[in-house]
């Protein structure tokens, strides 16, 4: 299996508190990898290292390394803005910008310097189709994105991320506030997208991870407890902690 993202004994401290303890993991290309664990397990921190959004936090110390395609992303020579165009992120709470649907999706490509109207239209249509949202909004692209329902907003955020043509998509609990129908649409979209992208899905919802991810990682209190194919993790977990979590005994 081909490694896309890897970390090597990655440690993260917020002030004196250590939130990640020697995480070493290799995420495979063109798969969906589920990161699960109760809150405070460090899974969100780990993805904020991968997209370097951790730069916005104060008083952070990082040790060890993280790499994409074998190249360190913590190196000083890496431009975090370039990196975030390669690593798209969808947040727990959909955050459409206070602009039209079209402008929300064209925002990233415009920042990259695409100004040609026809190619922007093409990107917008393509991204919305991939996020399973096109049919619902194609007649009202110029209305405010804030008027969409929560589920639509989250798919808009996914489409917006796809418009950047990233290599990696990180989703931080993308369905936590959504109804089952919207959740199913997002899951369908992700399953289709993995042939082109490497996807990391952070979720507290073990059933969701079991449904759509190829690999699963279980984090607990900043440690990577178990990481294997989803089938193995959910049928014959090696650690009793993992088994307890999956069965809902804690978390």
């Amino acid at each position, binding site marked *: 299996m081909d490694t896309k993202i890897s970390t090597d004994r990655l440690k993260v401290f917020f002030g004196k508190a250590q939130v990640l303890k020697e995480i070493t993991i290799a995420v495979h290309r063109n798969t969906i990898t589920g990161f699960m664990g109760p809150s405070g397990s460090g899974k969100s921190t780990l993805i904020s290292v991968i997209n370097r959004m951790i730069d916005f936090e104060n008083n952070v110390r990082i040790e060890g390394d993280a790499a994409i395609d074998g190249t360190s992303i913590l190196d000083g020579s890496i431009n975090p803005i370039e990196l*975030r165009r390669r690593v798209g992120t969808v947040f727990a709470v959909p955050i459409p*910008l206070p602009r039209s649907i079209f402008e929300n999706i064209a925002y990233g490509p415009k920042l990259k310097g695409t100004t040609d109207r026809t190619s922007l239209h093409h990107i917008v249509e393509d991204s919305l189709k991939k996020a399973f949202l096109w049919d619902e909004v194609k007649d009202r692209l110029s209305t405010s994105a804030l008027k969409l329902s929560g589920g639509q907003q989250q798919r808009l955020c996914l489409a917006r991320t796809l418009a950047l043509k990233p290599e990696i998509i990180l989703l931080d609990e993308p369905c936590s506030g959504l109804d089952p129908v919207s959740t199913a649409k997002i899951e369908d979209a992700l399953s289709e997208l993995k042939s082109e992208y490497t996807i990391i899905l952070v979720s507290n919802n073990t059933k969701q991870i079991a449904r759509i991810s190829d690999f699963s990682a279980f984090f607990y209190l900043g440690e990577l407890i178990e990481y294997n194919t989803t089938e193995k993790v959910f049928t014959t977990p090696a650690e009793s902690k993992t088994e307890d979590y999956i069965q809902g005994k804690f978390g």
Partner: protein
Amino acid sequence: MIDRTVFKERFVKWVLVAFALSSLLFLFLIFLFILAEGLPLFLKVGVKNIIFGFKWAPTKGYFGIFPMIISSFLVTIGALVIGAPMGLSCAIYLSEYSGKKMKMFLKPALELLAGIPSVVFGFLGVIYIVPLVRNYLGGSGFSLISTSLVLGVMILPTIISISFDALVSVPKTYREGSAAMGATKWQTIYKVIIPSAKSGILASFILGMGRAIGETMAVIMIAGNALKIPGSILDPLRTLTGNIALELAYATGDHRLGLFSTGVVLMVIIMILNYIANFGIKRKIAK
């Protein structure tokens, strides 16, 4: 025992209500007096002859304040042209770029700027700005541009503090969402934060205008106070506030009433500006 605490509570509450309402009462009384003194002349001379009259010779029966209305607006717009870009830039720097130390230094400095008496601004204007304009641009130096420059600085604290509040209240999630899409800091500010804070920023400009149009002392010291519409930025002018302050000391009879009429016009303009500013801010909160 319980009755007594209840009584105390009620007493405190009513005392506070009385004081709170007294400020409303003062506003009402100011209104009443200005209208009582200012309106009769409108009825006698005619609204049109006062507001659109070009000639101000109150001892001879001419009460036209049109040039002063225009002049007041000109200095206000001039102040905004100078103060708005500076103020907004400063607010953006404070809310987006400056560290804690810089903020701790800049904010008190701005409060100090707001606290400097306007006569000091006028004095500095006469000593430095007026000669500068006279020597490098021409004219007497007592001019629209000198007044605008000084007023532009005077309205900075208003513009900065209100736009700063508007910028800071833009949710952090907008910044993160934009950054996650590969936006640089400036792109995020320009494309997301400023548009989101637009109504608050506009409100800061309008309140700055209200401050500029009401300013008196600094203006009479620098504006030159000539009774005509300035033909260029180097010409002197007289504002509504300046007119009242300059002549009230010796005005009697209809002349005095004419100054109150000037006050009525000024008050109406400021009320309109405040209404627009409040409307802008409220719309933002409603969203």
